[in-house]
């Protein structure tokens, strides 16, 4: 079964897209001749390019489809993953943390940890990051190929190899610059292709007021689908089963801050900006872009609620777990809307948007992996002294091998479908303890190398342990998440919270019993040991803080507007 097929004009649009991203790679090939240009884009990226690629690299394969499906299931609350779960963290990165990352001249987040805490912490964070990045991109690739098979009848192997090899070619040729510039291109394509759904959807439903009226008629408990805060008093009052504590502490503080401030995949894009002001301005631009994405993700989910939930709708969606062969599931809400509104031409553009969203995330993974592998694993642990050319070659080879390894993971997922849930859970294990380590390293000069290493290790071990315990003895759930009936999402948020706390406590305790580095070695790395940055005087509209304040005000007004 497949939903639709592409007309020749659609195929032409998809083919032109592939040609364009490859073209960028080939044009960059000649100037990508030093390791500085391959891994660090010559540290010359401008603010708009860095800001847009920052957001595009963050997109997963199923960003558009997955979040539209979650909105269909849980209502408008999913918008918080874009607003309160992202924007404050991005602004914190820009204004508070970026000066330390940037002025340390580190090449990566593990590289910063080496300067602050030494080799063991770096090796631990680099190793876990490299492994997880490749596993994630393989899982994403499999998920994407699956969608293309379902929607367009494309061969699974063809989708996997065509998309992965395209990414491999343009990253191997042009390195980080190529990945970043293509992410800008992909950012525009995602918007062009996806915007047709909210526009025509709102026209069909009679505008925003018409849409909310429809949802209220279609659903028994509609108010919880249309408000972001007012139904968060208790987990029973909203379809997602979370409360305000989970959203504020789990999502906004640990998950959001952990991801946006320490995940090298996104931080890499702004670390290579051409100067500190640009490096601060880029995430602020990214914050505005991130805030706007719900228009093409959350709004289609709501439009789905307005259209497919109606009595007499010929299409009926069921949850994934209850689906029989031939049923449409929640995950199909975005493809179904695309087919509903997009005729030949626009359909091709929409499919291009889905592919572009996948590729931008994949290229982000590959380029971040190549940098971490070469600078933080290969150089310190395998071959300390080698020529510039040698490391450049290692970078190109590791990009290619990284892609091949991801393809291997994708085929592994083909046979063991449940691996997808495992890897997604695993990924969250490593992000939240790392956030505690970086936070203490940056703001507490007493934190020691031993403290950081043991804290990080304990944080990772404890989250793996909790995950394993719940899988082996389901009754352990009530100790991890305080409730025997916690949903997987709530369990995840609590597990991240505990591993973050473990890392924090262990780091502090061990640090108090070990000898800290002298303050003179911490200049530029730690708050309080660093002379204040001399800011070149610029007019007010060039100041990152002004725009960060505006972004914060915008996101707070949105909270009030959709209360």
């Amino acid at each position, binding site marked *: 079964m497949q939903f639709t097929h592409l007309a020749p*004009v659609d195929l032409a649009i998809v083919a*032109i897209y592939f040609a364009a991203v490859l073209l960028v790679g080939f044009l960059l090939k000649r*100037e990508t001749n030093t390791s500085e240009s391959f891994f660090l884009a010559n540290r010359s990226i401008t603010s708009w*390019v860095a800001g847009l690629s920052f957001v595009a690299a963050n997109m997963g394969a199923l960003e558009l489809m997955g979040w539209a499906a979650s909105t269909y299931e849980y209502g408008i609350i999913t918008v918080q993953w874009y607003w309160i779960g992202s924007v404050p963290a991005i602004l914190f990165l820009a204004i508070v943390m970026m000066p330390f990352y940037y002025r340390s001249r580190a090449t990566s987040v593990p590289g910063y940890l080496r300067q602050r805490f030494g080799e063991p912490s770096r090796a631990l964070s680099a190793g876990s990051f490299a492994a997880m990045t490749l596993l994630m991109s393989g899982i994403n690739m499999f998920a994407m190929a699956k969608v293309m098979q379902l929607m367009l009848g494309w061969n699974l192997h063809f989708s996997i190899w065509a998309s992965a090899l395209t990414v491999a070619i343009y990253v191997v040729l042009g390195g980080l610059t190529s990945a970043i*510039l293509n992410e800008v*291109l992909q950012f525009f394509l995602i918007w*062009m292709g996806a915007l047709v759904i909210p526009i025509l959807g709102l026209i069909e439903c009679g505008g925003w007021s018409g849409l909310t009226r429809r949802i209220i008629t279609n659903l028994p408990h509609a108010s919880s689908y249309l408000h972001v805060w007012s139904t968060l008093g208790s987990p029973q009052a909203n379809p997602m089963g979370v409360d305000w504590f989970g959203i504020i502490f789990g999502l906004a503080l640990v998950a959001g801050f952990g991801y946006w401030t320490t995940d090298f995949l996104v931080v890499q894009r702004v670390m290579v900006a051409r100067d500190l002001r640009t490096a601060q301005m880029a995430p602020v631009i990214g914050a505005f872009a991130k805030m706007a994405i719900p228009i093409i993700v959350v709004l289609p989910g709501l439009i789905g609620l307005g259209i497919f939930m109606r009595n007499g709708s010929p299409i009926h969606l069921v949850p994934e777990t209850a689906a029989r062969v031939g049923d449409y599931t929640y995950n199909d809400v975005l493809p179904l809307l695309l087919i509903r509104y997009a*005729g*030949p*031409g626009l359909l091709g553009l929409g499919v291009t948007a889905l592919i572009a969203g996948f590729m931008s995330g994949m290229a982000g993974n590959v380029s971040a992996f190549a940098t971490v592998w070469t600078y933080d694993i290969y150089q310190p642990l395998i071959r300390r002294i080698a020529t510039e050319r040698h490391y450049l070659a290692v970078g190109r080879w590791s990009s290619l091998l990284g892609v091949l390894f991801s393809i291997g993971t994708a085929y592994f997922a083909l046979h063991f479908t449940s691996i997808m849930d495992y890897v997604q859970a695993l990924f969250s294990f490593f992000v939240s303890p790392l956030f505690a380590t970086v936070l203490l390293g940056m703001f507490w000069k007493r934190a020691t190398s031993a403290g950081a290493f043991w804290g990080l290790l304990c944080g990772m071990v404890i989250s793996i342990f909790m995950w394993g315990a719940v899988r082996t003895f389901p009754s352990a759930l009530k100790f991890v998440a305080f409730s025997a009936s916690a949903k997987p999402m709530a369990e995840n948020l609590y597990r991240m919270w505990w591993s973050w706390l473990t890392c924090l406590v262990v780091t502090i305790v061990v640090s108090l019993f070990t000898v800290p580095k002298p303050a003179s070695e911490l200049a530029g790395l730690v708050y309080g040991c660093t002379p204040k940055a001399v800011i070149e005087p610029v007019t007010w509209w060039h100041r990152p803080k002004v725009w960060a304040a505006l972004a914060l005000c915008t996101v707070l007004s949105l909270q009030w507007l959709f209360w």
Partner: protein
Amino acid sequence: MKMRQANIWFLVGLLQTIYGLILVLAGIRQLSHPPATALADLHATLWAGAAILVMGAIFVATNNPRRTRGKSSR
């Protein structure tokens, strides 16, 4: 052609122009052969094509690599 960072905006514009033209042509064809989509009478393909074409033209005009060469890119 040497790829510089500023040229990515030109390339975005170029791609938009090509896509805009394709969509306008497809949209004109759909005036007489309406596709089997909801709201086909609004001619979304034609309107989207025109909008993308205009955007592409603006990007190409303001980021022409011949004209902006030597000027520091923003």
